[in-house]
């Protein structure tokens, strides 16, 4: 403040208070009360559980951003298989794509760029398709094929043993259809349900 010409009363003369300190202390008290109030208010609005990110498979459009936008080198989004919905078809449109050359597992026939889908014979004419998560990169090509031509049993999900649960998920910000949602941590998956008519 401006140099005061008057002498301020010494602290011992005023029982340890002076104007400035009083003002400061009251503001301090107000701030503390404010923080307490904020704590109360926010606790009332808060949830005890943390939230995690998850993809709503019914909104996802399989754009391929999940593979490239994750902050991790190997995306935390992987393809998941709802076996109960699968038709176990010999010609799987998630495995082979719409126009394969031949129904073999040769590289030119497979849709998956990393070969993460494994095809196993079960019984005639059914084949089981499983996803190897260590190879899957979450590009969604198989999901697109399955949704367009098949039963839609393949879908993308955030895997929580890999996901860092960033406060702002980079994939969520880049998702064109807004399929990323915050879900409670004790129900962290939005799996597709079986709906046999």
């Amino acid at each position, binding site marked *: 403040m401006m140099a005061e010409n008057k002498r301020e009363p010494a602290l011992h003369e005023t029982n340890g208070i002076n104007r400035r300190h009083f003002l400061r202390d009251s503001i301090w008290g107000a701030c503390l009360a404010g923080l307490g109030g904020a704590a109360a208010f926010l606790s009332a609005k*808060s949830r005890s559980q943390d939230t995690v990110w998850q993809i709503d498979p019914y909104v996802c459009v399989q754009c391929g951003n999940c593979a490239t936008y994750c902050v991790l080198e190997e995306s935390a989004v992987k393809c998941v298989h709802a076996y109960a919905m699968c038709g176990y078809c010999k010609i799987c449109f998630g495995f082979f794509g719409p126009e394969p050359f031949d129904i073999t597992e040769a590289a030119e026939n497979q849709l998956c760029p990393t070969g993460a889908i494994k095809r196993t014979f*079960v019984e005639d004419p059914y084949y089981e398709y499983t996803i190897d998560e260590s190879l899957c990169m979450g590009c969604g090509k198989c999901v697109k094929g399955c949704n367009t031509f*098949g039963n839609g049993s393949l879908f993308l999900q955030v895997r929580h043993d890999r996901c860092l649960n960033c406060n702002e998920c980079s994939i969520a910000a880049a998702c064109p259809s807004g399929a990323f949602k915050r879900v*409670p941590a004790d129900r962290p998956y939005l799996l597709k349900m079986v709906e046999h*008519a």
Partner: protein
Amino acid sequence: MIRFGYIIISIAFFLIVCGITSSVPAAPMSRQLQAQAGVERFPPPDFVESGYELPSPTTPHPRQNIYEYVDAVVLLAALGLASYLVLKKRSRRAILTLSVFSLFYFGFWRKGCVCSIGAIQNIVLSIFDRDYAVPFVVVVFFLLPLVFTLFFGRTFCAAVCPLGAVQDLVLLRPVAVPSWLESGLRLFAYAYLGAAVLFAATGSAFIICRYDPFISFFRLSGSLNILVLGGCFLLVGVFIGRPYCRFFCPYGVILRQLSRLSKWRVSITPDDCIKCRLCEDSCPFGAIKVPTAEWPARDYDKSKKRLALLLLLLPILILACAWAVSTASDLMSRTHPTVRLADRIHLEETGKEEETTDASAAFWATGKDVRELYAEASNIQAAVKTGCWLLGGFLGLVIALKLIGHSVRRTRIDYEADRAGCLACGRCFEYCPREHVRLNKDKQAVGDGE
């Protein structure tokens, strides 16, 4: 009269209130899965021969909730320890060790998320968005450092914040930033805080998280841009102490104001100080203020006039800045994905763009009414506009107050640790000969006592 007893009572009251309200059940989050009627083109298989059993998809769990609370406890312990080390023990080495621990735990182990700085956004979002309930631990991360700062000064910055810790560690050759420049550079932190609050409140983006320079180091992966940004900050940080903390950190802005009021903090006791001048250059962050020289008498009238002018200008400045930022509201609203989508849909609908993007194609496929989308986007734009007015007003206020602050002739007869800017790092302790005396006395006392 504020006495020690009153402080204890208020702390107790505060804790009780917290305890009661946190036991209130959290708002349940309803999750309704759309049961989409059969997209299934092929019938379910009939496994007759092989007795094949249908496997189920695996559902690995995220981090157990209990560990979140462990984080909160570690934060509390670290804050307490930091406060003790700074104010009582006054050992730079101990503070450094604690900050290494914080870097390891809150930085590399927890991957730097959720941090107190980003918690601002979660809090703001929960206030403005009814559908979002902030996790309790985030509230703790937001409030605990603020409470400790109110009592002990910026001990959070000293040894607990991982971003501060990493910058502190790379500071090798401090170069002082001239004090006149510091104030101006700090404007950016206020703008960053205001913008972060604006974007979080409108649900557009969490920009503190998006542009966190050190997060990619903590995660050991990330986009190239942020890695380079972080590298630049660290490189600059080798010479200029804690650039992010001083000029960019939005949480630091709040901590500064609370630290001004704090009960106890790193201070230079006027009675003890012998004005040896040895500590003048000890602070790499320029937080030690030197006693002022006398202001020339001829300056008195000029500065009185200047101050009066600035006080008059205060409301004008606020309004002008408010208007100025509001002109940018259209651009700011584009950070929101809905507004971007509506813009794109509008371009396609009016025929200015033929092709569709992923987002617009996804929208068209939902068959939703375009007018609904436009209404939503217009609402967001209106909210952003209001927010921009407020942001501009806030910035105007900050600028005006800074100008006024620099026009006021402060008289300082003692050496002072800047109440707001001292980061409590403890580097200055060992420069003070009186401190050496005190430490030796303590050692002697311990030695004599045996």
